[in-house]
């Protein structure tokens, strides 16, 4: 196990300086995420026009993995249509949780830097917090997404 596999430069960079770390205006969807295990909290807001996410941002606090994952996610989904976003999450989730990882790492682009998280099962929830929060925002049922 090499820590550098987990804490890749991109992750350290996004963890320290998260992108889209602001609330977009206007916005019409909001999700809140919470990991009760470590206390990580994220509030995600986005503007959905038709089925396209035209803007997205988040404010939150937490570990490098959760913040970097949310940060890279906002970059990856901005301008994307919902079916594309769903496919991205599905591939991302598979990369983190399946035994042999993603069958198509290229499709994930920058998000592929989280592949190392698979070796740290206790940290998978950190990497998926932002995505669960996104799902919750898109469903916009209010309430809170938790990693539990």
């Amino acid at each position, binding site marked *: *196990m090499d*820590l550098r596999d*987990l*804490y890749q430069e991109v992750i*350290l960079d996004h963890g*320290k300086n998260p992108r889209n770390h602001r609330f977009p205006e206007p916005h019409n969807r909001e999700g809140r995420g919470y990991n009760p*295990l*470590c*206390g*990580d*909290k994220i509030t995600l807001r986005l503007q959905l026009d038709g089925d396209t996410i035209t803007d997205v941002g988040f404010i939150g*606090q*937490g*570990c*490098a*993995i959760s913040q970097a994952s949310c940060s890279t996610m906002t970059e990856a989904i901005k301008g994307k249509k919902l079916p594309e976003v769903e496919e991205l999450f599905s591939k991302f989730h598979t990369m983190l949780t399946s035994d042999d990882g993603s069958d198509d790492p290229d499709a994930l682009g920058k998000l592929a830097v989280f592949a190392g998280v698979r070796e*740290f099962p*206790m*940290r998978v929830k*950190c990497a998926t917090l932002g995505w669960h929060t996104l799902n919750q925002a898109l469903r916009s049922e209010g309430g809170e997404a938790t990693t539990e």
Partner: protein
Amino acid sequence: MTEASPIAASSPAAFDVQRVREDFPALHQDVHGKPLVYLDSAATSLKPQSVIDAVAEVYARDCANIHRAVHLLSQRATVRFEEAREKVRAFVNAAKKTEVVFTRGTTEAINLVAHSWGRAYLREGDEVLVTELEHHSNIVPWQILCQQTGATLVVVPMTDRGEILREAFEEQLTERTRLVAMAHVSNALGSVLPVAELIALAHERGAVVLLDGAQAMSHVDVDVQALDCDFYAFSGHKLYGPNGIGALYGKERLLEGMPPYQGGGDMIRSVTFEETIYNELPYKFEAGTPNIAGAIGLGAAIDYFSSFDAHVVHAHENAVLRYATDAVESVPGVRLIGTAPGKVAALSFLMDAAHPHDIGTIVDSEGVAIRTGHHCAQPVMEHFGIAATARASLGMYNTTDDIDALVTALRKVQELFG
């Protein structure tokens, strides 16, 4: 343990930490290719071989239910189970064996008091006093009880060093205070509460006092008669014993006046559909087949711990804690959380460079096991305006070498994140 305790007085042994380490098989393994450095004894302590053997022997030899059959195995199991109760009694210096109720652990012991004593005696307008530094298990049962009874939960604030001061306690204590529930030692911060003094104050107002002793048993003296507490709850697994076993000490007078907590076998004297007559203490509170092997294992843990002079063990741990405090504080960007004078066994801290979760993962990769998170004490985290801390906590087997390994690992965190 007190100096008056017969166990401590009868069998003091010199404390040789290297020899102690040989007694704990879990210490002798590599994790991630590095020798394990275990600094999470506040979550659960490791178990000496004698405890592991005692539990195994129950299943291998004396595997029978207790208080029931006339056959030999049942007789042996019953005798050993009741011997374990006597060991607990002696360890906390309870007046009588009947004042020791076996439970699953501290949490169940607290819930037992909340359900049984609380529902019988609390009324609307009464107050339950807890402190700001409590573990969730000494908050939530009282919240539930207050919701059910209309009583009010009142909180004694702590200082920024993590202390509960007499003045703050007195301020919240009123003639409506019926019960005080407080930690003997804080799990998140290691603060030792001035419980003897606070118990005396509470008794002056006629309040009943429960102490949460989960973190105290192996780190400070516990003498329930000297403290004059009404209830004392603790877990075996933080005292080098098995998981799933603990005990509630309660004054006989109080236990006698309390209804059963759970109904079932063993807690009755006779049952008809018209009437059930409950068993005597402590069995009234021990419905169902208990954790027999656990209780016997706890007895073995008390035997093990009592083979040392407790004050020598405490002194050793305190020396390691002082070393750890200086060493960790010397790492740039570290901030200690909880600096109460006289604290024991736990060092909570933050690093500017990294979130506690990241610290935990990185030091784990160096073989160092620490706890990260809110430590089931979210009000403590809220007090300091943080979500989590990293916590290194000590057992009798820890050495300054362990602390050096921690500091080396913390420097790795700095390297990676700095």
